[in-house]
């Protein structure tokens, strides 16, 4: 029995959502995944407003963030998270298609905790997601005030 941290995934592409959830499910990490489909929704969730006004206020254990998002893009989400007193402690993993150096530089400047380029090969993709999920949701000790629940290994 291990504690499993809640994962907040920000991803606009339904296929990517499905493939990521499938990969996480393979390792029983999918139970506590919240999916938001654009930057604005992700911020609503994080700041407990709009549709998420009534949720319990704990932070997710990790934020998986795509960069190219409708409405508010990933870098803006990252900037707001890292400049908020309460949210800045959330580990943020950028999970993106882009290998662009300037995105990488911008993300690290804003204080991202990890930057992962989604591999085209599905096995590599599953492996990457699995390792991310296990590391951030299981192994990593998230900051106090994050949601953890008992999960299966």
């Amino acid at each position, binding site marked *: 029995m291990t504690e499993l941290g809640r994962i907040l995934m920000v991803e606009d*592409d339904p*296929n*990517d959502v499905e*493939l990521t959830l*499938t990969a996480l499910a393979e390792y029983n990490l999918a139970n506590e995944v919240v999916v938001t489909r654009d930057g604005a929704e992700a911020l609503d969730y994080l700041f407990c407003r709009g549709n998420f006004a009534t949720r319990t206020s704990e932070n997710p254990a990790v934020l998986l963030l795509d*960069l*190219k998002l409708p409405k508010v893009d990933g870098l803006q989400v990252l900037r707001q998270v890292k400049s908020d007193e309460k949210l800045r402690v959330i580990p943020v993993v950028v999970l*993106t*298609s*882009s*290998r*662009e*150096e300037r995105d990488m530089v911008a993300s690290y400047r804003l204080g991202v905790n990890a930057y992962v380029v*989604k*591999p*085209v*090969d*599905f*096995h590599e*993709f599953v492996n990457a997601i699995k390792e991310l999920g296990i590391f951030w949701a299981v192994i990593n000790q998230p900051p106090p005030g994050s949601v953890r629940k008992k999960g299966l290994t």
Partner: protein
Amino acid sequence: MTGMAKPDASSQGWTAVVLKYGLAVVSVALALALALVAQSQALQKVEFPLLMMAVAVTVWYAGLGPGIVAVALSGVGFNYFFTQPLYTLYIEPVDRPVFVVFLLFGLVIASFGARRRRIERELLQAREELQAEVAERTQQASLLDLTHDTIFVRGMDDVITYWNRGAEELYGWTARDAIGQHAHQLLQTVFPKPMEAIHGELLAAGRWEGELDKRKADGTPVAVASRWSLRRDEQQQPLAILETNNDVTERKRREEDIRQLNEDLEKRTSELQATNKELEAFAYSISHDLRAPLRHVAGYTELLHKNTAAQLDDRSRRYMTLILEAAKRMGTLIDDLLAFSRIGRAETRKTTVSLDALVKEALHETRPETEGRQVAWTVGALPDVYGDRSMLKLALVNLISNAVKFTRTRPKAEIEIGHADGKDEETVVFIRDNGVGFDMRYADKLFGVFQRLHQAEAFEGTGIGLATVQRIIHRHGGRVWADGIVEGGATFYFSVPKSWWEPRS
């Protein structure tokens, strides 16, 4: 000896003096002789006018000094020969006033003669000076005509009074046409500011400079750099304006051309920048949007394979494998293409780079490719070059891994890296292998994007490696080329200009 060479001037001077005073003595002696002869012929009282004549002649021809001598001699002679007692120099008191009058009269004649001589001399001198000045002026005027600069003089009423040959050449009006004409009307001058302002400046400073537009006799417009100088008379009243013009039409045209070229260049630069931005956005979009569907194709195919593998026949399973391989290959292509485009866009950061160290690193990076193979490496000493370290390393990695790849069919691969004797101004590096080589007929295709000279089954690759090498070397201002023989190995060369060398301090 020196007395012989020198004497002319002084001896002539002396001769002249002797002649002058000699004239005094001779003319007085002659007058006395004539008077004595006349006296013997019983002609009375002619000695006085004769002696005065001798004085006058002496003064006239020999000047004041000899004149006074003549007066003195006449006095003595007169006293000796013609006043009582005769043949003595004693003068009786009765005769003294006559003698004094005689002397005074002689002196008056002498001084008149002298003054006349002086006036004559001054007149002569003034005439000579005048002639000299006329000659000089004439010479100056013709000198002004010699210059190609345009020079003309106009009065304060702007009527032209002088017009040199340069002006004739520039404007096409002859001096005869121009003199007497109103300068600004004749040349249709366009002033950059009101005439009053220019004249104010001219009167205050005595000069004015500016660019003016004028017209030639045939109507052709001409731009001139114009300089005006004011001439004043003795009362400081403005008298005339000397205007010098230089034709700057050609210079102005060139300036305009340069300005136009700069403008075009700026426009083109901004167009290029816009294109570059677009390309960047395009590459960014490819990087994001093209890879996602590819991932999905691969992902879902994989899931399909996993869920249905048991029910599928061999052929269907093979199709799935092919789909996966195709997707993976496309992924690699996109990645390579993006890397290639990044090299074109990235800033180069140049430093002094040790090629020795760079080759070592590149060999280390390509080691996995040589696993299980026999490769004989020959690496010569390489110089330092000035360039972008990471780009040059990528070029070396690509070339080395190329050599490794195309020697795969050899039982023992031989790869040599060294630097060749190039032209003085560049460092030439080569990578030689004993691999499958290539047909020189297709050498121009080697460095093209997606160009491949071998079957995809024989040697894997996207056909972007050498294109990347070329782009990197071109960005350094160098060249790439290759030698090869089918089944006889290949040598790839690249050069980096030495002018970019910076000696290590």
